[in-house]
Protein backbone atom coordinates (compact mmCIF):
# COMPACT_ATOMS: atom_id res chain seq x y z
CA UNK A 1 0.00 0.00 0.00
CA UNK A 2 2.66 2.59 0.83
CA UNK A 3 4.30 1.61 -2.46
CA UNK A 4 1.17 2.42 -4.39
CA UNK A 5 0.95 5.75 -2.65
CA UNK A 6 4.51 6.55 -3.55
CA UNK A 7 3.94 5.51 -7.16
CA UNK A 8 0.79 7.59 -7.49
CA UNK A 9 2.52 10.56 -5.94
CA UNK A 10 5.38 10.02 -8.33
CA UNK A 11 3.07 10.04 -11.35
CA UNK A 12 1.28 13.08 -9.98
CA UNK A 13 4.48 15.08 -9.55
CA UNK A 14 5.75 14.09 -12.97
CA UNK A 15 2.54 15.04 -14.76
CA UNK A 16 0.85 17.85 -12.93
CA UNK A 17 2.07 20.58 -15.23
CA UNK A 18 0.75 18.73 -18.26
CA UNK A 19 -2.45 17.98 -16.40
CA UNK A 20 -3.03 21.61 -15.53
CA UNK A 21 -2.81 22.53 -19.21
CA UNK A 22 -5.03 19.61 -20.16
CA UNK A 23 -7.51 20.61 -17.46
CA UNK A 24 -7.92 23.95 -19.19
CA UNK A 25 -8.75 22.07 -22.41
CA UNK A 26 -11.26 19.88 -20.57
CA UNK A 27 -12.91 22.92 -19.03
CA UNK A 28 -13.05 24.68 -22.40
CA UNK A 29 -14.65 21.65 -24.01
CA UNK A 30 -17.16 21.47 -21.17
CA UNK A 31 -17.97 25.17 -21.34
CA UNK A 32 -18.49 25.14 -25.10
CA UNK A 33 -20.46 21.89 -24.88
CA UNK A 34 -22.77 23.35 -22.27
CA UNK A 35 -23.22 26.80 -23.84
CA UNK A 36 -23.77 25.41 -27.32
CA UNK A 37 -25.99 22.67 -25.88
CA UNK A 38 -28.06 25.27 -24.03
CA UNK A 39 -28.60 27.34 -27.18
CA UNK A 40 -29.49 24.27 -29.24
CA UNK A 41 -31.57 22.88 -26.38
CA UNK A 42 -33.59 26.06 -26.08
CA UNK A 43 -34.31 26.19 -29.79
CA UNK A 44 -35.37 22.55 -29.95
CA UNK A 45 -37.43 22.80 -26.75
CA UNK A 46 -39.37 25.70 -28.27
CA UNK A 47 -39.77 23.75 -31.51
CA UNK A 48 -41.08 20.78 -29.58
CA UNK A 49 -43.79 22.76 -27.83
CA UNK A 50 -44.63 24.86 -30.89
CA UNK A 51 -47.88 24.59 -32.80
CA UNK A 52 -46.12 23.52 -35.99
CA UNK A 53 -46.15 19.81 -36.76
CA UNK A 54 -43.09 20.16 -38.96
CA UNK A 55 -41.01 21.88 -36.26
CA UNK A 56 -42.14 19.34 -33.70
CA UNK A 57 -41.22 16.55 -36.11
CA UNK A 58 -37.73 17.91 -36.71
CA UNK A 59 -37.16 18.32 -32.97
CA UNK A 60 -38.36 14.79 -32.32
CA UNK A 61 -36.04 13.31 -34.92
CA UNK A 62 -33.07 15.21 -33.56
CA UNK A 63 -33.75 14.21 -29.97
CA UNK A 64 -34.44 10.59 -30.86
CA UNK A 65 -31.29 10.21 -32.95
CA UNK A 66 -29.01 11.86 -30.41
CA UNK A 67 -30.42 10.00 -27.45
CA UNK A 68 -30.46 6.76 -29.38
CA UNK A 69 -26.78 6.69 -30.35
CA UNK A 70 -23.58 6.67 -28.26
CA UNK A 71 -21.69 9.90 -27.85
CA UNK A 72 -18.50 8.31 -29.09
CA UNK A 73 -20.21 7.46 -32.39
CA UNK A 74 -21.49 11.03 -32.65
CA UNK A 75 -17.99 12.37 -32.08
CA UNK A 76 -16.50 10.19 -34.82
CA UNK A 77 -19.38 10.87 -37.17
CA UNK A 78 -19.16 14.63 -36.71
CA UNK A 79 -15.41 14.64 -36.88
CA UNK A 80 -15.15 12.73 -40.13
CA UNK A 81 -18.37 14.20 -41.49
CA UNK A 82 -17.53 17.84 -40.91
CA UNK A 83 -13.87 17.61 -41.73
CA UNK A 84 -14.92 16.35 -45.18
CA UNK A 85 -16.65 19.65 -45.94
CA UNK A 86 -15.02 22.15 -43.66
CA UNK A 87 -11.57 22.08 -42.12
CA UNK A 88 -11.54 22.64 -38.41
CA UNK A 89 -9.38 21.67 -35.49
CA UNK A 90 -9.98 18.47 -33.60
CA UNK A 91 -10.74 20.59 -30.60
CA UNK A 92 -13.63 22.35 -32.29
CA UNK A 93 -14.97 19.18 -33.84
CA UNK A 94 -15.04 17.64 -30.36
CA UNK A 95 -16.56 20.70 -28.71
CA UNK A 96 -19.31 20.90 -31.33
CA UNK A 97 -20.04 17.20 -30.96
CA UNK A 98 -20.46 17.71 -27.21
CA UNK A 99 -22.74 20.69 -27.85
CA UNK A 100 -24.90 18.84 -30.33
CA UNK A 101 -25.11 15.88 -27.97
CA UNK A 102 -26.01 18.03 -24.98
CA UNK A 103 -28.55 19.94 -27.02
CA UNK A 104 -30.88 16.96 -27.13
CA UNK A 105 -30.73 16.39 -23.38
CA UNK A 106 -31.02 20.08 -22.53
CA UNK A 107 -33.98 20.43 -24.92
CA UNK A 108 -35.75 17.80 -22.86
CA UNK A 109 -34.83 19.58 -19.62
CA UNK A 110 -36.28 22.88 -20.90
CA UNK A 111 -39.34 21.25 -22.42
CA UNK A 112 -40.11 19.43 -19.19
CA UNK A 113 -39.65 22.58 -17.15
CA UNK A 114 -41.83 24.70 -19.45
CA UNK A 115 -44.58 22.12 -19.53
CA UNK A 116 -44.31 21.72 -15.78
CA UNK A 117 -45.36 25.31 -15.16
CA UNK A 118 -48.95 25.54 -13.92
CA UNK A 119 -51.23 26.33 -16.91
CA UNK A 120 -52.87 28.92 -14.66
CA UNK A 121 -49.75 31.07 -15.05
CA UNK A 122 -50.19 31.20 -18.78
CA UNK A 123 -53.90 31.86 -18.47
CA UNK A 124 -53.42 34.67 -15.98
CA UNK A 125 -50.90 36.27 -18.28
CA UNK A 126 -53.10 35.92 -21.36
CA UNK A 127 -56.09 37.26 -19.46
CA UNK A 128 -54.13 40.44 -18.74
CA UNK A 129 -53.74 41.04 -22.45
CA UNK A 130 -50.20 39.76 -22.85
CA UNK A 131 -49.72 37.93 -26.12
CA UNK A 132 -48.29 34.43 -26.43
CA UNK A 133 -44.74 35.62 -26.96
CA UNK A 134 -44.81 38.03 -24.01
CA UNK A 135 -46.37 35.30 -21.88
CA UNK A 136 -43.57 32.89 -22.75
CA UNK A 137 -40.78 35.45 -22.35
CA UNK A 138 -41.91 37.17 -19.20
CA UNK A 139 -43.98 34.66 -17.28
CA UNK A 140 -43.49 31.03 -18.28
CA UNK A 141 -39.84 30.87 -19.33
CA UNK A 142 -38.33 32.72 -16.33
CA UNK A 143 -40.07 30.25 -14.03
CA UNK A 144 -39.07 27.30 -16.19
CA UNK A 145 -35.47 28.48 -16.21
CA UNK A 146 -35.30 28.46 -12.43
CA UNK A 147 -36.61 24.94 -12.38
CA UNK A 148 -34.12 23.92 -15.06
CA UNK A 149 -31.10 24.96 -13.06
CA UNK A 150 -30.68 21.80 -10.96
CA UNK A 151 -30.97 19.42 -13.95
CA UNK A 152 -28.80 21.76 -16.05
CA UNK A 153 -26.16 21.60 -13.34
CA UNK A 154 -26.37 17.85 -13.47
CA UNK A 155 -25.98 17.94 -17.25
CA UNK A 156 -22.98 20.20 -16.80
CA UNK A 157 -21.29 17.56 -14.65
CA UNK A 158 -22.15 14.82 -17.13
CA UNK A 159 -20.60 16.94 -19.89
CA UNK A 160 -17.43 17.43 -17.89
CA UNK A 161 -17.02 13.68 -17.64
CA UNK A 162 -18.22 12.98 -21.19
CA UNK A 163 -15.62 15.36 -22.57
CA UNK A 164 -13.10 12.57 -21.91
CA UNK A 165 -14.46 10.77 -24.98
CA UNK A 166 -13.01 13.30 -27.41
CA UNK A 167 -9.60 11.74 -26.69
CA UNK A 168 -10.63 9.42 -29.53
CA UNK A 169 -10.08 12.20 -32.06
CA UNK A 170 -6.82 13.27 -30.43
CA UNK A 171 -7.82 16.31 -28.42
CA UNK A 172 -5.31 16.91 -25.64
CA UNK A 173 -7.67 16.95 -22.68
CA UNK A 174 -6.95 15.24 -19.40
CA UNK A 175 -8.06 11.74 -20.25
CA UNK A 176 -5.89 11.57 -23.35
CA UNK A 177 -2.95 12.75 -21.27
CA UNK A 178 -3.56 9.97 -18.76
CA UNK A 179 -3.84 7.51 -21.59
CA UNK A 180 -0.53 8.60 -23.02
CA UNK A 181 1.14 8.61 -19.62
CA UNK A 182 -0.13 5.10 -18.96
CA UNK A 183 1.33 3.83 -22.22
CA UNK A 184 4.66 5.55 -21.85
CA UNK A 185 5.38 4.90 -18.18
CA UNK A 186 3.87 1.43 -17.86
CA UNK A 187 2.17 2.82 -14.74
CA UNK A 188 -1.32 2.47 -16.17
CA UNK A 189 -3.11 1.91 -12.88
CA UNK A 190 -1.46 4.89 -11.23
CA UNK A 191 -2.05 7.13 -14.25
CA UNK A 192 -5.78 6.39 -14.41
CA UNK A 193 -6.09 6.74 -10.68
CA UNK A 194 -4.57 10.22 -10.93
CA UNK A 195 -6.90 11.24 -13.74
CA UNK A 196 -9.87 9.87 -11.82
CA UNK A 197 -8.87 12.13 -8.93
CA UNK A 198 -8.72 15.12 -11.25
CA UNK A 199 -12.25 14.48 -12.47
CA UNK A 200 -13.48 13.86 -8.97
CA UNK A 201 -12.06 17.12 -7.67
CA UNK A 202 -13.45 19.09 -10.62
CA UNK A 203 -16.91 17.57 -10.16
CA UNK A 204 -16.83 18.30 -6.45
CA UNK A 205 -15.93 21.92 -7.08
CA UNK A 206 -18.77 22.30 -9.57
CA UNK A 207 -21.24 20.56 -7.32
CA UNK A 208 -20.31 22.95 -4.55
CA UNK A 209 -20.65 26.03 -6.77
CA UNK A 210 -23.99 24.86 -8.12
CA UNK A 211 -25.32 24.29 -4.64
CA UNK A 212 -24.28 27.80 -3.64
CA UNK A 213 -26.09 29.18 -6.66
CA UNK A 214 -29.25 27.16 -6.06
CA UNK A 215 -29.36 28.28 -2.44
CA UNK A 216 -29.02 31.87 -3.58
CA UNK A 217 -31.96 31.41 -5.95
CA UNK A 218 -34.08 29.94 -3.18
CA UNK A 219 -33.33 32.92 -0.99
CA UNK A 220 -34.21 35.35 -3.79
CA UNK A 221 -37.53 33.71 -4.38
CA UNK A 222 -38.61 33.68 -0.75
Amino acid at each position, binding site marked *: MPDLFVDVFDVFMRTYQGFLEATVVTLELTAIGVVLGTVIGLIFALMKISGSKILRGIANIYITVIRGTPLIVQIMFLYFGIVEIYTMSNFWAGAIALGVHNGAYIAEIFRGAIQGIDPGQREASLSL*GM*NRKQTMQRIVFP*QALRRSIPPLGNQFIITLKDSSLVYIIGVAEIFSLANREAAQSYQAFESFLVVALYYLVLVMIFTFLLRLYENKLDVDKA
Partner: protein
Amino acid sequence: MIVGKNIHKSFGDLEVLKGVDLHVKPQEVVVLVGVSGSGKSTLLRCFNFLEMINSGEITIDGHTINPKKEDLAKIRAEVGMVFQHFNLFPHKSVLENVIEAPITVKKMKKEEAKKLGMNLLRKVGLEDKADVYPSKLSGGQKQRVAIARSLAMEPKVMLFDEPTSALDPELVGEVLQVMKQLAEEGMTMVVVTHEMKFAKEVADRIIMIDQGTIIESADPKNFFENPQNERTKQFIQLVE
Protein backbone atom coordinates in the same frame (compact mmCIF):
# COMPACT_ATOMS: atom_id res chain seq x y z
CA MET B 1 -71.35 45.84 -21.93
CA ILE B 2 -70.77 42.16 -22.53
CA VAL B 3 -73.26 40.11 -24.49
CA GLY B 4 -73.24 36.42 -25.32
CA LYS B 5 -75.70 35.17 -27.91
CA ASN B 6 -76.55 31.52 -28.34
CA ILE B 7 -73.14 30.36 -27.13
CA HIS B 8 -72.31 26.74 -27.78
CA LYS B 9 -69.17 25.11 -26.48
CA SER B 10 -68.15 21.47 -26.57
CA PHE B 11 -65.09 19.58 -25.43
CA GLY B 12 -64.99 16.66 -27.83
CA ASP B 13 -68.34 14.92 -27.53
CA LEU B 14 -69.24 16.71 -24.32
CA GLU B 15 -71.46 19.70 -24.96
CA VAL B 16 -70.87 22.01 -22.01
CA LEU B 17 -72.70 25.17 -23.10
CA LYS B 18 -75.91 24.58 -25.00
CA GLY B 19 -76.96 27.92 -26.37
CA VAL B 20 -76.36 30.42 -23.58
CA ASP B 21 -77.73 33.96 -23.91
CA LEU B 22 -76.39 36.48 -21.45
CA HIS B 23 -76.63 40.23 -21.62
CA VAL B 24 -74.68 42.13 -18.99
CA LYS B 25 -75.42 45.84 -18.92
CA PRO B 26 -72.83 48.48 -18.08
CA GLN B 27 -72.21 48.68 -14.31
CA GLU B 28 -74.31 45.62 -13.73
CA VAL B 29 -73.23 42.94 -11.26
CA VAL B 30 -74.32 39.48 -12.33
CA VAL B 31 -73.80 36.51 -10.06
CA LEU B 32 -73.67 33.11 -11.74
CA VAL B 33 -74.65 30.11 -9.69
CA GLY B 34 -75.06 26.43 -10.44
CA VAL B 35 -73.83 23.06 -9.31
CA SER B 36 -70.31 21.92 -10.05
CA GLY B 37 -69.81 20.95 -13.68
CA SER B 38 -72.75 22.98 -14.97
CA GLY B 39 -70.49 25.13 -17.18
CA LYS B 40 -69.96 28.32 -15.17
CA SER B 41 -66.19 28.45 -15.53
CA THR B 42 -66.41 27.54 -19.19
CA LEU B 43 -68.77 30.43 -19.82
CA LEU B 44 -66.43 32.91 -18.12
CA ARG B 45 -63.46 31.51 -20.01
CA CYS B 46 -65.33 31.91 -23.29
CA PHE B 47 -65.97 35.57 -22.46
CA ASN B 48 -62.24 36.00 -22.06
CA PHE B 49 -61.37 33.84 -25.08
CA LEU B 50 -59.36 31.42 -22.99
CA GLU B 51 -61.77 28.97 -24.59
CA MET B 52 -63.08 29.43 -28.13
CA ILE B 53 -66.80 29.08 -28.63
CA ASN B 54 -68.02 26.65 -31.27
CA SER B 55 -70.89 28.85 -32.34
CA GLY B 56 -72.71 31.95 -31.23
CA GLU B 57 -71.55 35.48 -30.78
CA ILE B 58 -69.76 37.53 -28.14
CA THR B 59 -70.03 41.31 -28.08
CA ILE B 60 -67.92 43.47 -25.81
CA ASP B 61 -68.78 47.13 -25.44
CA GLY B 62 -70.77 47.15 -28.67
CA HIS B 63 -68.11 45.38 -30.66
CA THR B 64 -68.87 41.89 -31.92
CA ILE B 65 -65.74 39.80 -31.86
CA ASN B 66 -64.53 37.58 -34.59
CA PRO B 67 -61.89 35.51 -32.80
CA LYS B 68 -60.29 34.33 -36.04
CA LYS B 69 -59.58 37.80 -37.36
CA GLU B 70 -58.86 39.82 -34.26
CA ASP B 71 -56.00 40.32 -31.89
CA LEU B 72 -57.27 38.33 -28.93
CA ALA B 73 -54.68 39.81 -26.61
CA LYS B 74 -56.21 43.23 -27.12
CA ILE B 75 -59.67 41.94 -26.35
CA ARG B 76 -58.52 40.04 -23.28
CA ALA B 77 -56.93 43.22 -21.96
CA GLU B 78 -60.41 44.73 -21.75
CA VAL B 79 -61.83 41.81 -19.80
CA GLY B 80 -60.27 41.25 -16.40
CA MET B 81 -60.28 37.78 -14.90
CA VAL B 82 -59.80 36.66 -11.33
CA PHE B 83 -59.16 32.96 -10.79
CA GLN B 84 -59.98 30.60 -7.98
CA HIS B 85 -56.31 29.82 -7.43
CA PHE B 86 -55.10 33.43 -7.81
CA ASN B 87 -52.38 32.55 -10.33
CA LEU B 88 -50.05 35.28 -9.14
CA PHE B 89 -46.63 35.26 -10.77
CA PRO B 90 -44.39 33.73 -8.09
CA HIS B 91 -41.16 35.12 -9.55
CA LYS B 92 -42.35 38.70 -9.29
CA SER B 93 -43.00 40.85 -6.25
CA VAL B 94 -46.51 42.03 -5.47
CA LEU B 95 -45.97 45.40 -7.14
CA GLU B 96 -44.28 43.75 -10.13
CA ASN B 97 -47.29 41.47 -10.50
CA VAL B 98 -49.54 44.48 -10.71
CA ILE B 99 -47.44 46.56 -13.12
CA GLU B 100 -46.32 43.74 -15.42
CA ALA B 101 -49.15 44.05 -17.95
CA PRO B 102 -49.35 47.86 -18.04
CA ILE B 103 -45.63 47.96 -18.82
CA THR B 104 -45.51 45.04 -21.23
CA VAL B 105 -48.83 45.55 -23.00
CA LYS B 106 -49.56 49.25 -22.71
CA LYS B 107 -45.88 50.26 -22.79
CA MET B 108 -46.48 52.42 -19.76
CA LYS B 109 -43.41 54.13 -18.25
CA LYS B 110 -42.14 52.31 -15.20
CA GLU B 111 -42.54 55.31 -12.89
CA GLU B 112 -46.10 55.88 -14.01
CA ALA B 113 -46.91 52.18 -13.69
CA LYS B 114 -45.50 52.09 -10.17
CA LYS B 115 -47.69 54.99 -9.17
CA LEU B 116 -50.72 53.25 -10.63
CA GLY B 117 -49.70 50.00 -8.95
CA MET B 118 -49.30 51.62 -5.53
CA ASN B 119 -52.68 53.28 -5.86
CA LEU B 120 -54.31 49.96 -6.67
CA LEU B 121 -52.53 48.21 -3.82
CA ARG B 122 -53.76 50.94 -1.50
CA LYS B 123 -57.24 50.36 -2.80
CA VAL B 124 -57.09 46.67 -1.87
CA GLY B 125 -55.34 47.47 1.41
CA LEU B 126 -51.95 45.99 0.58
CA GLU B 127 -49.63 48.92 -0.09
CA ASP B 128 -47.33 47.69 2.67
CA LYS B 129 -46.82 44.41 0.79
CA ALA B 130 -45.62 45.97 -2.46
CA ASP B 131 -42.10 44.51 -2.29
CA VAL B 132 -43.04 41.14 -0.85
CA TYR B 133 -43.19 37.96 -2.95
CA PRO B 134 -46.54 36.18 -3.33
CA SER B 135 -45.34 33.11 -1.39
CA LYS B 136 -45.31 35.28 1.74
CA LEU B 137 -48.98 36.28 1.47
CA SER B 138 -52.12 34.69 2.86
CA GLY B 139 -54.74 33.45 0.40
CA GLY B 140 -56.92 36.46 0.97
CA GLN B 141 -54.02 38.80 0.35
CA LYS B 142 -53.07 36.89 -2.79
CA GLN B 143 -56.56 37.24 -4.18
CA ARG B 144 -56.62 40.96 -3.43
CA VAL B 145 -53.33 41.35 -5.30
CA ALA B 146 -54.83 39.39 -8.20
CA ILE B 147 -57.76 41.80 -8.28
CA ALA B 148 -55.42 44.79 -8.25
CA ARG B 149 -53.40 43.17 -11.03
CA SER B 150 -56.51 42.84 -13.19
CA LEU B 151 -57.63 46.38 -12.43
CA ALA B 152 -54.27 47.73 -13.58
CA MET B 153 -55.35 47.11 -17.17
CA GLU B 154 -58.48 49.20 -16.59
CA PRO B 155 -60.80 46.50 -17.91
CA LYS B 156 -64.35 47.24 -18.98
CA VAL B 157 -65.63 44.08 -17.33
CA MET B 158 -64.32 41.92 -14.51
CA LEU B 159 -64.93 38.18 -14.42
CA PHE B 160 -64.53 36.35 -11.12
CA ASP B 161 -64.39 32.55 -11.10
CA GLU B 162 -65.06 31.39 -7.54
CA PRO B 163 -62.64 33.96 -6.12
CA THR B 164 -63.11 32.84 -2.52
CA SER B 165 -63.50 29.08 -2.92
CA ALA B 166 -59.85 28.34 -2.21
CA LEU B 167 -59.73 30.51 0.90
CA ASP B 168 -59.93 29.67 4.57
CA PRO B 169 -63.33 30.86 5.84
CA GLU B 170 -61.84 33.69 7.90
CA LEU B 171 -60.19 35.18 4.79
CA VAL B 172 -63.27 35.23 2.58
CA GLY B 173 -64.62 38.48 3.95
CA GLU B 174 -61.67 40.68 3.01
CA VAL B 175 -61.90 39.60 -0.63
CA LEU B 176 -65.67 40.03 -0.84
CA GLN B 177 -65.25 43.45 0.73
CA VAL B 178 -62.94 44.53 -2.09
CA MET B 179 -65.36 43.15 -4.67
CA LYS B 180 -68.26 44.91 -3.05
CA GLN B 181 -66.38 48.20 -3.14
CA LEU B 182 -65.62 47.61 -6.80
CA ALA B 183 -69.29 47.01 -7.52
CA GLU B 184 -70.22 50.21 -5.72
CA GLU B 185 -67.75 52.12 -7.87
CA GLY B 186 -69.67 50.98 -10.92
CA MET B 187 -67.53 48.16 -12.28
CA THR B 188 -69.35 45.75 -14.57
CA MET B 189 -68.90 42.32 -13.01
CA VAL B 190 -69.76 38.69 -13.64
CA VAL B 191 -69.14 36.64 -10.53
CA VAL B 192 -69.29 32.89 -10.11
CA THR B 193 -69.62 32.27 -6.39
CA HIS B 194 -71.27 30.17 -3.73
CA GLU B 195 -71.40 33.11 -1.33
CA MET B 196 -75.13 33.68 -1.25
CA LYS B 197 -74.91 36.54 1.21
CA PHE B 198 -72.71 38.41 -1.24
CA ALA B 199 -75.14 37.60 -4.07
CA LYS B 200 -78.08 38.96 -2.09
CA GLU B 201 -76.30 42.15 -1.10
CA VAL B 202 -74.34 43.01 -4.20
CA ALA B 203 -75.87 41.35 -7.26
CA ASP B 204 -78.25 43.16 -9.57
CA ARG B 205 -79.15 39.83 -11.03
CA ILE B 206 -78.59 36.20 -10.17
CA ILE B 207 -78.41 33.66 -12.95
CA MET B 208 -78.69 29.94 -12.48
CA ILE B 209 -76.92 27.69 -14.97
CA ASP B 210 -77.83 24.05 -15.17
CA GLN B 211 -76.26 21.56 -17.57
CA GLY B 212 -75.09 24.28 -19.89
CA THR B 213 -78.24 26.38 -20.11
CA ILE B 214 -79.58 29.33 -18.17
CA ILE B 215 -82.66 28.21 -16.28
CA GLU B 216 -83.29 31.20 -14.06
CA SER B 217 -82.46 34.88 -14.19
CA ALA B 218 -83.87 37.27 -11.64
CA ASP B 219 -83.01 39.98 -9.17
CA PRO B 220 -81.89 38.56 -5.81
CA LYS B 221 -85.23 39.04 -4.09
CA ASN B 222 -87.17 37.20 -6.75
CA PHE B 223 -84.45 34.63 -7.23
CA PHE B 224 -84.61 33.51 -3.61
CA GLU B 225 -88.27 34.16 -2.83
CA ASN B 226 -89.93 33.28 -6.05
CA PRO B 227 -87.84 30.88 -8.12
CA GLN B 228 -89.56 29.55 -11.23
CA ASN B 229 -87.56 26.47 -12.02
CA GLU B 230 -87.64 23.26 -9.96
CA ARG B 231 -83.85 22.90 -10.14
CA THR B 232 -83.41 26.44 -8.83
CA LYS B 233 -85.67 25.64 -5.89
CA GLN B 234 -83.57 22.57 -5.09
CA PHE B 235 -80.39 24.59 -5.41
CA ILE B 236 -81.65 27.30 -3.05
CA GLN B 237 -82.62 24.71 -0.46
CA LEU B 238 -79.17 23.23 -0.77
CA VAL B 239 -77.29 26.45 -0.18
CA GLU B 240 -79.50 27.92 2.51
